[in-house]
């Protein structure tokens, strides 16, 4: 039987896919440094964004988002999206863990992703308007 935690994880993953699709789809138009800077200026964000990387790794395309919990802290986690299979994996402090973790971690990941896509969408729309 599915647990509530697993079901919530599945829901968050399903909700996250279109967000990650958006970043992947617009990766060539996004100005990454200003995007990271704008994200880190959001005072409500509990995670800080270190890097965004779109790359091929061992023949597999991936979008990697590296977060940390604050300035000077070690990376809190890496969210990796594989656009070809539309799969998501996450690691925290070097160990592979399900994206669920605790409710707090899960919500922090998700909220960060929503913030990032909101900023990315604004950046893309502003380019269209120019």
């Amino acid at each position: 039987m599915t647990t509530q935690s697993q079901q919530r994880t599945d829901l968050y993953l399903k909700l996250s896919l279109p967000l990650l699709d958006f970043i992947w789809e617009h990766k060539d138009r996004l100005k990454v440094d200003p995007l990271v800077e704008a994200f880190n200026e959001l005072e409500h964000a509990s995670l800080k964004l270190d890097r965004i990387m779109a790359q091929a790794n061992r023949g597999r395309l991936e979008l990697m988002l590296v977060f940390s919990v604050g300035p000077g802290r070690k990376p809190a986690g890496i969210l990796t999206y594989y656009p070809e299979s539309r799969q998501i994996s996450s690691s925290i402090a070097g160990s592979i863990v399900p994206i669920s973790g605790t409710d707090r971690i899960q919500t922090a990941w998700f909220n960060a992703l929503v913030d990032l896509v909101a900023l990315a969408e604004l950046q893309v729309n502003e380019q269209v308007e120019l």
Partner: protein
Amino acid sequence: MRDFSPPSEQMAQLKRVNSVRRELCLQMMVIPFQQLWAHRDTLTLAKIQRDFPAIFQSVGEVTEFQEVEHEGRQALSIRFVEMYGKESTAHLLYLPGAKPKVLCEHYNPPVSVRYPLITTGGWLNALTKLTARVMVHYDEDLPNDK
């Protein structure tokens, strides 16, 4: 006294970000609402309050859950209330096939532009948690997209 408020240009940018964020959250509410809509005949407010009491660690519970008629169509009406103080409320409405609406919302203390998470994002998280509980209760899996 020193003014710590961000410059107006930065504030305007924050408002734009919050506006996009809100739209994203509303779009994402469709998936949990679809699951809840499927159970509208058997899921009642009394059942939710009995079986899934506090749906969020720090934010809220459900105070209304019912099928209603809205502009000539059947819709699902949900009200959330914040647990602490019970002074922040939101009334969400889902019409199948459409983006959910926030009919009214009230925040006390008022939500700062710089800390908007309690708003639509908070209710999305509450809705997601409620939906997860409902689906486990009915022993359901999410439908596959493919």
